[in-house]
């Protein structure tokens, strides 16, 4: 039997030792007395070769051949080959959560280095060992703000990813937490910062923004953060980590909690997961932060080493009073992010940032030369921008599929008043030729 080494002789010997004549008797003695189920819908076992062939065939039914301009928070970045090799070391991926620190220094040091990388990217002093994804991280940030301020309202920018906002709505539904969404003007792409500040009251625990926002627009937040602080609320920013290669950091702008989706840091798109939620906070908030945290300490001989720390916040100790129910981090994804940032390095990260921004800029210029396509909103963007098409963008995206392009995300799916708008993402993977072909295909779809 695959994966099960006991032979009949082994089983006989072990059953005898356990004073049972048969497996049936063992089940009886272990209190399992109902008849076994039929399991008629489970197929008979297949060989490894047959399973591989079956799954190759399914994989080939997925349209990865499309030239991709869809982002919307999840990006098609290059992943150096060495990342997979390093993360593929089975000493990492077949280990459990590092509860026995002496036997887990590899994982623990890697998480400490990951936490350091997140701090350096965001300019924040402290990070946890990661959370499930960007959406759950943002919800955890709200809960954290609720614990810190004893207030139960979150003011959320309408320019925060609707995917995240839907998740927050779902998680808050039983918790007596008020969510106030500050809408954005459909002809613009900024976050209506004045309206956001206006919405903050003495009931507000936190203000939630995204950077760059869901439309790709990059905004200066420093003044708004000051105003939020003046009203004694917590300022939370969900950031796109690759953009931070180039952009003024959330830490520099004064945010208290920085979260985000870490998929872009070397993690495959993999049809929606597994991904990586990151969270970094100001020092004074760390004891209210959810999730695993690794700290550096010393052993009995004074030698440096790493342990899980501040565990008194966590579910296995605090039970219903814990900061969160989360017990895993996304350890292997955090390791992947660290491996990616190590391989790409300081210089490479700058290059990736510059390539993305330049190629997006080039793509936008080309698209705006096409008759009937108009710019929408602010000009400052990193690698994603909104254009207005002369028709329903969803229809046009459908036609672009036939031309071999995933042309972008039709914003009408999120915002009923943006039916003609298209959100286009460009990463360092897209070549000049692909971008030109994309613009040509778009022109053909619109006008021929």
């Amino acid at each position: 039997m695959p994966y099960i080494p006991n032979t009949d002789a082994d089983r006989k010997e072990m059953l005898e030792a356990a004073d049972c004549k048969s497996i049936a008797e063992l089940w009886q003695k272990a209190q399992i007395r109902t008849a076994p189920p039929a399991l008629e819908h489970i197929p008979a076992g297949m060989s490894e070769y047959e399973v591989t062939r079956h799954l190759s065939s399914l994989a080939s039914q997925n349209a990865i051949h499309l030239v991709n301009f869809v982002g919307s928070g999840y990006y098609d970045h290059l992943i150096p080959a060495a990342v997979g090799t390093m993360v593929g070391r089975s000493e990492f991926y077949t280990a459990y959560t590092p509860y026995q620190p002496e036997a887990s220094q590899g994982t623990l040091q890697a998480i400490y280095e990951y936490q350091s990388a997140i701090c350096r990217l965001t300019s924040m002093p402290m990070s946890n060992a990661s959370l499930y994804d960007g959406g759950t991280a943002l919800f955890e940030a709200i809960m954290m703000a609720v614990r810190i301020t004893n207030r139960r309202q979150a003011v959320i920018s309408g320019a925060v990813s609707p995917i995240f906002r839907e998740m927050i709505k779902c998680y808050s539904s039983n918790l007596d937490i008020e969510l106030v969404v500050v809408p954005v003007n459909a002809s613009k792409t900024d976050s209506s910062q004045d309206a956001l500040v206006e919405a903050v009251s003495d009931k507000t625990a936190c203000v939630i923004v995204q950077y760059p926002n869901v439309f790709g627009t990059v905004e200066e937040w420093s003044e708004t953060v000051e105003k939020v602080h003046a009203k004694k609320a917590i300022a939370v920013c969900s950031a796109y980590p690759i953009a931070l290669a180039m952009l003024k950091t959330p830490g520099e702008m004064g945010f208290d909690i920085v979260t985000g989706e870490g998929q872009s840091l070397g993690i495959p798109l993999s049809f929606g997961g597994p991904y990586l939620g990151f969270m970094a906070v100001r020092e004074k908030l760390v004891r209210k932060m959810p999730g695993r945290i690794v700290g550096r300490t010393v052993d009995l001989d004074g030698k440096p080493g790493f342990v899980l720390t501040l565990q008194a916040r966590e579910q296995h100790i605090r039970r219903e009073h814990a900061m969160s129910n989360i017990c895993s981090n996304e350890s292997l994804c955090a390791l992947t992010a660290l491996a990616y940032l190590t391989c790409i390095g300081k210089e490479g990260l700058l290059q990736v940032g510059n390539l993305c921004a330049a190629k997006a800029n080039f793509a936008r210029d080309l698209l705006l030369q096409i008759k009937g396509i108009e710019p929408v909103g602010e000009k400052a963007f990193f690698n994603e921008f909104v254009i207005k098409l002369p028709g329903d963008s969803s229809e046009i995206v459908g036609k672009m599929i036939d031309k071999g392009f995933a042309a972008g995300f039709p914003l009408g799916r999120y915002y009923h008043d943006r039916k003609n708008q298209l959100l286009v993402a460009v990463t360092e993977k897209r070549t000049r030729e692909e971008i030109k072909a994309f613009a040509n295909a778009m022109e053909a779809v619109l006008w021929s």
Partner: protein
Amino acid sequence: MELIYSKGKSGRHGSSLPKLDVPDANSIPDSLKRKKAAQMPEVSELEAVRHFTLLSRKNMGIDSTFYPLGSCTMKYNPKVNEKIAAMPGFADLHPLLPQLRRGGALTQGALAVIYETERMLSELLGFSQTTMQPLAGAHGELTGVMLIAAYHKAHGDKKRKIMLIPDAAHGTNPASAAMAGFDTVTIPSDPDGNVDLDALKKELNENVAGIMLTCPNTLGMFDKNVKEICDLVHKAGALAYCDGANFNAIIGRLRPGDIGFDVMHVNLHKTFSTPHGAGGPGSGPVGVCEKLVPYLPVSCVVKRSDGTYALEYHHKESIGYIAPFYGNFGIILRAYAYLLVLGREGIVKVSENAVLNANYIRVKLLPYYDQQYPGYCMHECVFSATRQTEKGVHALDIAKALIDRGIHPPTIYFPLIVKEAIMIEPTETESKEDIDKFIQVMIDIAKLADSNPDAITVCPLTTPVKRLDETQAARKLDLASLE
């Protein structure tokens, strides 16, 4: 070992990126650019690879050692699953493709994987439907109790704010219940380690929303009253949640849906062989009986009559979006491959051999270690280091002694109702020879604890570091190397 940030040198870089083939211009004003580059490592690719290889050697994993960590089901992670998850047709697939117009047709292979895995899980659990969305076990628990909350809300039963949780439960159960807005009430265990039925009856009333029961329980035993518990809970108008952390004990042999549970999560990273990843990513699908189907999270994958697959989003009573997309697809894919290789006849052998291995260890170690709750176990057996404690040797010391002997320790100090608990779960993927070696090591440690306890309490001696100062770690926080 040196941090990656102190290796290499300024100006070195190992990456090979495409050249800029468009004008070097962007739309970001200088005021919105970061002033100083993020201080990422500056190492060659070889230096990077060597660093991670050295780190990996400071870890114990299933591939290097026996890993009988109770309640965690550290079974072998088949390598074919990793190969399949890395296929570009899956790994490079953008999750928003199906949301483009006519996009569902672009991801039929991936949707088939989700759908077929869902069907098999529902069959194995004895439930109508399973949501593949939850991203981990605890996330599955949260989803499950949110479904219970939604059910009572939909029935106008607003008073039901209490979740009953046995004292032997994992800490995530009360934490998850709290996140779904419930108050928790603890139910004690009886002298056999089962739920105390009288105590349960006293707490059951019209304010109770449900019970969260780990089945088999955290002592590794099957509570013989579990059907009666479900019946009592139902009679009181509440629902029964099954924590499926221990599903490996019964997979293919007993279906929780058949004995009265209403909702249950399983851990793909336990029972279904996907890697633990040193603490995630996991996946925690939740199966439900018919009456909870309307509240399942969106989206669901359905199979149309023409054999194609589609995503469904429109469920009026759904609790909404608990995950950004369709769950941890890469993990679901591995579990799918595992189920296909094993097939019906293989799955039955999983629980049989897991239970047999655990009982074998139990009888072999009984002469040397105390058991607070004796009797036949399921897939794991729980001992107490109480006899050894008399000589000053605690469960923690035994754990460290095992590390020195090349074996990852069992779970210790859980469940909380057992003094000095040592919880051993061998899984079905270990050979009898390795199990016999482990038994012998445990016997040797017990003997040494008696004759020379200091030789145990001094452990570990062979690891990269000795016991670490956790108090200093919490007091003098050092969580990152900053620039």
